[in-house]
Structure formats: structure tokens, C-alpha cells
């Protein structure tokens, strides 16, 4: 695989086992040395405190270093949104909003960005992020609990954004030109 170009796929998510196996009863499960899971989590403390890895420092103070964010690329521009800013769902639905945040060159065409996290979501819960045709925005905002995932199927016409959840300091340290949306 050395030097091979890798493509990030929007095909995975983090979920509780009970939810995952409920949706995919035929799922296969990774087994290492006869075990499918261990209770020990070596990074419990890391996720529970405000310390950065090896006390790494960043100069960008737009957010606290360990603020959880959803990060993605839009028209070649690094973009981040704090988890707390879209709990319960959010539509970034106006050209004016994007222009105000420095993304005036991004043309979403007839689509809008939809972000969703459950209110009070666990830190590991995957953000759901889509490009949604404008004509379906009403549909998004009237679905019970916004975007229910019981079936595992994505709503028709929705295009998944290829981003991921991380901490602010991780993302901004390697993407200092990040546009922070609110």
C-alpha cells in the first residue's frame, strides 16, 4: 500500500453494539485471539479530561483545545463545527451564511448542508452529515427525531459528507486555515 492514494469513505459509523446488531443481525465481528471485545479502554482518561496528547499546545484559541468538533472539507477548504452547535440538528442553508464565514467561493448548487447529533449525545456517537437537495429540507426538519437510523438506510437523495469527529486541537494543528462555522 506504500505511496498508494487512499480515499476516505462515508460508509462507517460508531455505534453501541446493541444498536448495531439490532440493525445488522448478520454482521460479522472482529475477533482477536478469541475475543470480540475487552472492557479495558486505555484511553478512558484521555477522553474524560482537558489534557491534550503529550501536552501539545496550539495558538488558535477560537475553541478550547479539547472541544469536540465535526470536521470536513468543502470545496478544498477545511471546515469545522463544534458538536455543541448542532445538537438536535442544524441546516446550513443560506449562501449568505457561507459567505459570512469566508466560504463565498463554495457553490453548493441546489443542496444544503445538514448536520445532526442527538441531544446529549455520547462523545463517541458519530455525527451524521449530508448534502441535501433544497427541495427535501422540509422533509429533514419534519422527520421525528430528525434523522432516525433504525433501518440503517440513509434517506433517499441525501449525500453523505466525508468528514469525521475529532478534537479541535487535532484538526486545527494540521489545518490552521480552518473555517469555523457556528
Amino acid at each position, binding site marked *: 500500500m506504500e505511496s*498508494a492514494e487512499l480515499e476516505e469513505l462515508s460508509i462507517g459509523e460508531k455505534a453501541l*453494539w446493541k444498536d448495531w446488531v439490532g440493525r445488522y443481525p448478520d454482521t460479522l465481528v*472482529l475477533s*482477536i485471539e478469541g475475543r470480540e471485545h475487552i472492557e479495558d479502554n486505555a484511553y478512558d482518561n484521555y477522553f474524560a479530561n482537558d489534557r491534550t496528547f503529550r501536552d501539545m499546545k496550539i495558538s488558535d484559541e477560537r475553541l478550547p483545545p479539547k472541544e469536540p468538533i465535526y470536521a470536513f472539507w468543502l470545496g478544498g477548504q477545511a471546515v469545522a463545527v463544534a458538536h455543541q452547535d448542532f445538537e438536535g440538528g442544524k441546516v446550513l442553508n443560506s449562501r449568505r451564511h457561507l459567505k459570512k464565514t469566508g466560504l463565498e467561493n463554495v457553490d453548493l448548487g441546489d443542496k444544503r448542508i445538514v448536520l445532526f447529533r442527538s441531544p446529549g449525545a455520547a462523545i463517541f456517537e458519530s455525527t451524521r452529515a449530508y448534502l441535501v437537495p433544497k427541495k427535501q429540507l422540509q422533509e429533514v426538519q419534519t422527520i421525528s427525531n430528525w434523522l432516525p437510523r433504525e433501518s440503517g438506510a440513509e434517506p433517499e437523495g441525501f449525500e453523505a459528507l466525508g468528514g*469525521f469527529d475529532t478534537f479541535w486541537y*487535532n484538526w486545527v494543528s494540521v489545518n490552521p486555515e480552518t473555517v469555523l462555522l457556528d
Partner: protein
Amino acid sequence: MFFSWRFLATFTLSSSFVFSAASPSLAAPSEKPSSESLPPGVEQILPRGKIAAVFAPNFVPAAKAELSPEAWVLGVVLEGQAKAYSLNLLNRHEIVNDRIGDNPIAAVW
């Protein structure tokens, strides 16, 4: 590039699946670069291979899997095939080089 990608994958909330259409090989690297080859400003925290990636993963069906209901997993569905990887297991290996159908994928945590 290697440093930043590995860093993000390991110590953040990120998880992802990446795949290469260019090379289907999942073989483990046979050569280990020395720390002398690192570019200026890059610090080697652990020697390469210290956290061993998985190159030949085994799987069991859900009915035979032992996980607590509240265990977090990284899940993927591709071409109708679902696979789950315990996050706590991934903590110890960070990368699982895998395949779904003809697609080589890397489950990264």
C-alpha cells in the same frame, strides 16, 4: 503526512474507512525505516510497529460474538456486508487491514 494521518486516527474521536483502488496488497511492511530518516521537526514517539496493525483479521458471526450491549463498535456496511470492530480492541491495534468483497479497506481508530 504519515505522522499527521496516524495522529488524527489514533488520538482523536475519528474513525474512518479508507481504501485503495491502486493496490490490493494487504501485506505487512517488510522494512522498518530508521528514526534517522525522519524529517526535521518530526519526533518519533514509538518505533514503527510497536502498536501492531492487524493484517489478517478473523471474524465471527454476531450470534457467536461476546460483547456487552453497551460496547462501542466501529461499524461498516459495504456491498451488503456489515462488519463491526470493537473500539476497545482497536485501541490496541489502531488499524485493521481488511477486505469487504473485492474492496481492500482499512478500519482506522
